[in-house]
């Protein structure tokens, strides 16, 4: 374990903030949807994919990134956006569909674009992998040492575009890190039914890149693996594939009846919660103390609360604004 105290606390903060963001969203999302749940009703309509439980994937990688590094995230993007430093106020306003949103309310929660930190996301499975390759190519062609990170779920590696992106990154030896968040479910389909192999890292040699699997949602081993991958990429040594075993606490989307998964699965996962584990690690190793950690958590919660307050106050867009920004 090579993480500095700063990095450890940064990751702790990123994870706490993301968790609190998602738990808050779970509540906020239900405003106006009770007693009868209607996906199009309420304060925040549309699909909502929350990432509580998956925070290590975001924090353990983004801790190594700079603003000029590109991250492409999928339909479950909040934790990654937060770790990448996306403007939390404007992100939340976007999810609320308000004028101060990153896209003025045009995109919503699956379409968060913050060029200031080179963060993009998209709702089509694996769609972000090729653009990550392109961002990396652009950086290299301009002699910059910026890199790109592509996040997908474990359902995505079976999508053709993911494969094409890995081969491109491999054959051109580009600075890309591919992160697979393996929460073991693609909606209701378990990995064993979607993927011919148990471990996607096995596929990495087929693209001339190293493949690593991180077990047990462990942010510390991920931190190390990502440090290596990012360093290799930045040094021009090519791409890496990292698959992270992770946990999904909520349903696939809010409102998911979750009939397909064992009732107590989530309980079991929560017993080994990654934030709790990092907390205990920091305490047990006397890296910091509980008041420090509580102070961090407090700052995170305040920031998140402020973002939700900002979003609530932001005005609804004018209907005819929908006609703007199709082209620049």
């Amino acid at each position, binding site marked *: 374990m090579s993480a500095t105290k700063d990095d450890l606390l940064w990751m702790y903060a990123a994870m706490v903030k993301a968790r609190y963001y998602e738990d808050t969203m779970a509540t906020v999302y239900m405003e106006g949807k009770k007693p009868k*749940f*209607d*996906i*199009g*009703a309420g304060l925040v*309509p*549309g*699909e909502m994919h929350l990432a509580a439980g998956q925070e290590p994937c975001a924090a353990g990688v983004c801790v190594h990134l700079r603003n000029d590094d590109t991250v492409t995230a999928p339909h479950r993007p909040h934790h990654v956006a937060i770790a990448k430093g996306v403007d939390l106020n404007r992100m939340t306003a976007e999810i609320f*569909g*308000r004028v101060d*949103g990153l*896209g*003025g*309310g*045009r*995109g*919503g929660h*699956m*379409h968060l674009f913050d060029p200031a930190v080179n963060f993009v996301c*998209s*709702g*089509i*499975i*694996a769609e972000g992998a090729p653009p990550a390759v392109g961002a990396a190519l652009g950086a290299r062609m301009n002699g910059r040492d910026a890199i790109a990170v592509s996040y997908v779920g474990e*359902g*995505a590696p*079976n*999508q*053709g*575009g993911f494969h094409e992106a890995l081969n491109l990154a491999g054959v051109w030896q580009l600075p890309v890190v591919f992160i697979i968040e393996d929460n073991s479910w*693609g*909606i*209701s*389909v378990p990995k064993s*039914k*979607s*993927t011919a192999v148990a471990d996607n890292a096995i596929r990495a040699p087929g693209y001339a890149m190293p493949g690593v699997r991180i077990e047990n949602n462990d942010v510390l081993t991920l931190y190390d693996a990502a440090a290596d991958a990012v360093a290799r990429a930045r040094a021009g040594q090519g791409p890496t594939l990292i698959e992270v075993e992770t946990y999904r606490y909520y349903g696939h989307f809010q*409102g998911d009846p979750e*009939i*397909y998964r064992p009732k107590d699965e989530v309980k079991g996962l929560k017993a080994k919660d990654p934030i709790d584990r990092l907390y205990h690690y920091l305490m047990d190793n006397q890296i910091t103390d509980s008041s420090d950690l509580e102070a961090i958590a407090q700052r995170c919660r305040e920031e998140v609360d402020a973002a939700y307050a900002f979003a609530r106050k932001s005005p*609804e*867009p*004018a*209907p*005819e*604004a*929908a*006609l703007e920004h*199709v082209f620049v």
Partner: protein
Amino acid sequence: MPSSRKLTVSRAMSEAIAQEMRADPQTFVMGEDVGAFEGVFDSTLGLLEEFGEERVRDTPISETGFIGAGVGAAMSGMRPIVELMFVDFIGVCMNAVYNLAAKNTYFSAGNCKVPMVLMTGTGGGYNDAAQHSQALHATFAHLPGLKVVAPSNAYDAKGLLTTAIRDDNPVVYMFHKGLQGLVWMASPAGAATEVPEESYTIPFGEARTVRSGRDVTIVAISMTVHGALAAAEELATEGIEAEVIDLRTLVPLDRDTVIESVKRTGHLVVADEDYRSYGLTSEVITSVVEAHPDYLKGPPQRVAMPDIPVPYSRPMEDAMLPNAERIASAARHTTGRG
């Protein structure tokens, strides 16, 4: 005595599939979350339980793979029903549909056939933004070799799906998410209807005149049928009697019913949730004008999604989707009573 009960569109679809699967062991269903989840939009309710995992087959997120596999299965004697969860995802697998399913019959002069149904969820109205809310009717209808169906209610949904499954050609069956009658998404009152228990078919290429009227013809499909009917009610209070035609299928397109109606009414509004340009609205209008340029007594009207990505935010999406108000106002405009 034939019996019927009121069903949602999704139950009507599931029933059509179940009946065809019982009748023909070559029929099977394949797609993402069609098994234990019973279809993200409830199109496969009860099927896993009755038919098991082999015939109700969950797939990886590999649309090119499993739709292409559907074509191969169909050509080897099976009758696959394949689900593309959201029509918006067609971009990752369009080749399997328009270059493979749609053309193999032609290439082989009919010696090979592709009896596959591609069923797919369309439409917006619940704030799911531009990659999950498209209608894309014309994207399919423009490409030869595919039949394209888009029902507006449960009765048609069952009959058209049964026809689709029995058809020896590839059929794209576009069901609107907002018509399914999901417990978690609002749907218009008219979507759920009485549905006979026994199996029945509805021929493709026969539009249904849902409401008769002498003043203006409103042509609609899928969700816009409901907006058109509501508009017609509204217009009736103003003394404008609208005839509402539900096209039901885009390919084949029942031009005759539309032309015959416009001959009587002299006025035409076409309502479609798909994008305005290069779509269904211009196809229908042109079909009338090229046949009889003199039937139209006023400028034909299109009510469609503007040529913009479907916006997420509620006020924006609400203002862009075709609805009763926009349809009624178009009818007033073309009849000169606006």
